[in-house]
């Protein structure tokens, strides 16, 4: 019980620290879109609108208020889960996001799993055989993974596994709630395409962290004590790379979320990514704001969880 007190303190401190980050990040989202050249109301009103109509729109969107007032109102509404309405469809943005959120998350979680399931064993294999041919092969493969454009890989996967062999669907997605098996079926190829860079990242980081630990003083002592190499690796080595692994997972979550935008485009997946790209092209600002806001909050939340997990994996963190 006592051990939990510092942890709770840390949670509290982290939560307080995240408040300014959220405020600043949302300020950027809101402020940047205010820099858009031209009169937003005039654009919204259309080409042949009268002066009165433009003034009316300006009034209804609150565009006459000072910038900070507009930002405050937007943030206040966002906190109450009101992300305004799409300029294009006039649908509430939050509703659209909630509709697409599970699809994108399935893709991101799938890619994270593939990255870890493939990356962790490869990273361990490379580190424990550092300098060998196997190590060279694994590290070369991971350099390939870093340089491979994920959208190109996605197209090649579609051409091969969907269109030629018909193993997986080529496009679209199924809602997880409606048909879990179908949803996963649709998410297999996109997840693999998205995971290519993730695997490479996991291998690189895990390999270098494990090599550093395996060549440290205390591991040498363990050898001197007569422990077998496998006992050293499993009991001491891997326990100590857990922190690195957590850091990588946090990093990947953010990157995969960004990567999902691209992969969704290739597979025509109706997720948050395809939504924000289309909105950016047609300048549907409430939608862009809403999706970016959601993604930033997601990244912040993931970082918070990772910070907490640090204290569980490495109790020293909580005491600092």
């Amino acid at each position, binding site marked *: 019980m006592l051990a939990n007190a510092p942890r709770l303190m840390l949670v509290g401190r982290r939560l307080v620290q995240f408040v*300014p*980050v*959220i405020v*600043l*990040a949302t300020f*950027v*989202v809101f402020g*940047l*879109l205010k*820099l*858009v050249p031209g009169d937003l109301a005039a654009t919204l009103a259309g080409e042949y609108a009268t002066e009165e109509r433009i003034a009316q729109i300006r009034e209804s969107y609150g565009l006459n208020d000072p910038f900070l007032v507009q930002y405050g109102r937007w943030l206040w509404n966002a906190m109450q889960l009101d992300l305004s309405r799409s300029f294009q469809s006039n649908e509430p943005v939050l509703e659209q996001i909630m509709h697409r959120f599970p699809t994108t998350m399935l893709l991101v979680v799938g890619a994270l799993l593939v990255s870890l399931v493939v990356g962790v064993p490869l990273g361990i294999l490379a580190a424990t055989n550092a300098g060998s041919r196997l190590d060279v092969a694994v590290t070369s493969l991971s*350099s*390939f993974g*870093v*340089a*491979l*454009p994920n*959208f*190109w890989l996605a*197209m*090649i996967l*579609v*051409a091969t596994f969907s*269109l*030629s062999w018909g193993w997986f669907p080529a496009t679209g997605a199924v809602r997880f709630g409606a048909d879990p098996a179908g949803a996963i079926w649709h998410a297999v190829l996109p997840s693999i395409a998205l995971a290519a860079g993730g695997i490479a990242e996991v291998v690189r980081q895990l390999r270098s962290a494990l090599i550093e630990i395996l060549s440290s003083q205390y591991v040498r002592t363990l050898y001197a004590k007569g422990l077998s190499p496998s006992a050293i690796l499993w009991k001491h080595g891997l326990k100590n790379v857990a922190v690195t692994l957590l850091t990588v997972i946090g990093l990947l979550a*953010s*990157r995969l*979320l*960004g*990567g999902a*935008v*691209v992969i969704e*485009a*290739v597979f025509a997946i109706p997720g948050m990514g395809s939504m*924000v*790209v289309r*909105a*950016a*092209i047609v*300048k549907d*600002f409430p939608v*862009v704001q809403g*999706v*970016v806001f959601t*993604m*930033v909050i997601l*990244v*912040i939340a993931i*970082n918070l969880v990772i910070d907490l997990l640090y204290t569980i994996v490495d109790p020293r963190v909580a005491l600092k």
Partner: protein
Amino acid sequence: MSAAVSDAVLPRQPSFFTRLLGAPGAVIGTVVIVVVLGLAAFAPYLAPYDWNATSQCRRLAPLSAEHWFGCDLFGRDIFSRVIYGARFSLAMGLTTVAISLVFGALLGIVIAYGGGKVDRIGARVIDAMLCFPPIILAILIVAVLGVGLVNAALAVGISGIPRFARITRAATLTLVARDFVESARAVGATHTRIVLRHLLPNLAPILIVIATLDLGSAVLFTATLSFLGLGAQPPTPEWGAMLNAGREYVRYAPWTMIFPGLALFLTVMAVNLVGDRLSLILDPRQRDRS
């Protein structure tokens, strides 16, 4: 500090290029980069057809002796278009990295050197900016600026600023605490002088390393935006935009997407290989270890 002493004691180091080309990967990477630069420079002489001339061949015609990489939907020669595409990749990558580097480094130095409240607030701003997945930040910026090649490059460059600022800030903080900065201040050096003469030269190796390591992903990133339709617009022969156009014909004319993608992949791979080697040579910590 001890550079003069160690130079006298150690045997003469091999030249920079000898060391750079000391690994097979770096040699391959350099060759590919030289080829890409050559294609970019001499595209009009090397390309067998006009990159924008339609009806050079049957629509979506497969590979042939006349058209090595086949033809696209408008009967344009893909080989010629891929060659012209070389003009965008490295140029875009270098431009975006330059933007990220210059502004990121400036921000990082100012924040860390300013110290106190400036540093506390600045660090928070950087933290906040790092919460944006880079591609999301880039999309946000494109939404503001509008789609296009130049705007996409700006967006990618700006979205890299927080990353560069954070690394520069950390590096500057350790430098500011060192004796030589303290003594420079003690003898009355101006802030500008301290930053330009004392901090910047010491930061340079780190900055060069992160810039080279970033170049590959910058090339990839700008191509990605074009692929999404946010960057280069058709008929520009940019590899990402070409891949976007080839998307519809993956099944019946895979060559429309295979060759631009391969060119992009090889370029990024080459830049990364050289970057890895360069960072090994330039990174002071790595150098001390070897």
